[in-house]
C-alpha cells in the first residue's frame, strides 16, 4: 500500500537543515557556552532519524551514504591521535594547545586542539546512535 506523506516529507526537508545547523552550532559553542560534541552528535543523529521516519531506510542510506560503524572507528582514531600527539613531542598525554589566528572572514579566532577531541566524541556519538537505531530498525 502506497501512502501519501507529503506534508511530513516537505516539513522534514526544511527541518533537517535547521536541526543540522543547530547541531553544528552546539558543537562549536561547546567551549564557551552550553553544548559540545555529545549534544551535537545526538542532535545530528536526531536529524538522520527524522529522515528515516519520514522516508525509509533505503532513502536515508542514499542521502547519507556512510557506514556508521566506520564512523565510530574514525572518531576513536581522531580522539586518540589528539591525545597521543603531545606524547610524540615530549609532553604529557592529552595536553592541549591553543593559539590565536587571524582567519579570513571570522577575524581573530582562538583555535584549540580540544575541538579535535570533541570532533572525535561527536563522530563516536553519531556512529553509536545511528548503529543502534539502524540495526534495530532493519531487523524484521
Amino acid at each position: 500500500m502506497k501512502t501519501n506523506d507529503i506534508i511530513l516529507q516537505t516539513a522534514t526537508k526544511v527541518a533537517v537543515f535547521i536541526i543540522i545547523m543547530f547541531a553544528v552550532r552546539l558543537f562549536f559553542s561547546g567551549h564557551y557556552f552550553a553544548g559540545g560534541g555529545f549534544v551535537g552528535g545526538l542532535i545530528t543523529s536526531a536529524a538522520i532519524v527524522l529522515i528515516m521516519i519520514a522516508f525509509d531506510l533505503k532513502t536515508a542510506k542514499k542521502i547519507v551514504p556512510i557506514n556508521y560503524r566506520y564512523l565510530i572507528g574514525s572518531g576513536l582514531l581522531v580522539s586518540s591521535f589528539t591525545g597521543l600527539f603531545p606524547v610524540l613531542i615530549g609532553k604529557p598525554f592529552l595536553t592541549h594547545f591553543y593559539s590565536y589566528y587571524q582567519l579570513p572572514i571570522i577575524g581573530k579566532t582562538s583555535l584549540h586542539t580540544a575541538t579535535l577531541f570533541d570532533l572525535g566524541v561527536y563522530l563516536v556519538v553519531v556512529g553509536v546512535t545511528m548503529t543502534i537505531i539502524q540495526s534495530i530498525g532493519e531487523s524484521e
Partner: protein
Amino acid sequence: MFQIIILIALACISLSMLALLYRVIKGPSIPDRVIALDAMGINLIAVIALISILLDTYAFLEVILLLGILAFIGTIAFAKYLEKGEIIEYDRNK
C-alpha cells in the same frame, strides 16, 4: 513586581500541565495521550523560558530549541507507529 508576574505565569502553566497529565492518564484512546504528551512538551518549553527569565541567564536557551526538536520527532514517531505499526521501514514503496 515583574517576578510576581513570572511566578503567576509559571503557576498557570503548571495548572495546564496538570490538566494535560490528567488527559495522559485518563485519555480513552492512545492518540489522546500522544497529543497530551506533545502539548506537555510545549508547556515544558514555556516553563524553561520563564525560569530562564527568573534566573536572569542565557544558559537554557539551547534547551528550548532542543525540546522543540525532540517533541516534534517523538510525536512523529508515535504517529507513524499508530498508523503503520512500525516506525522505521526498509522500503516504503513495497
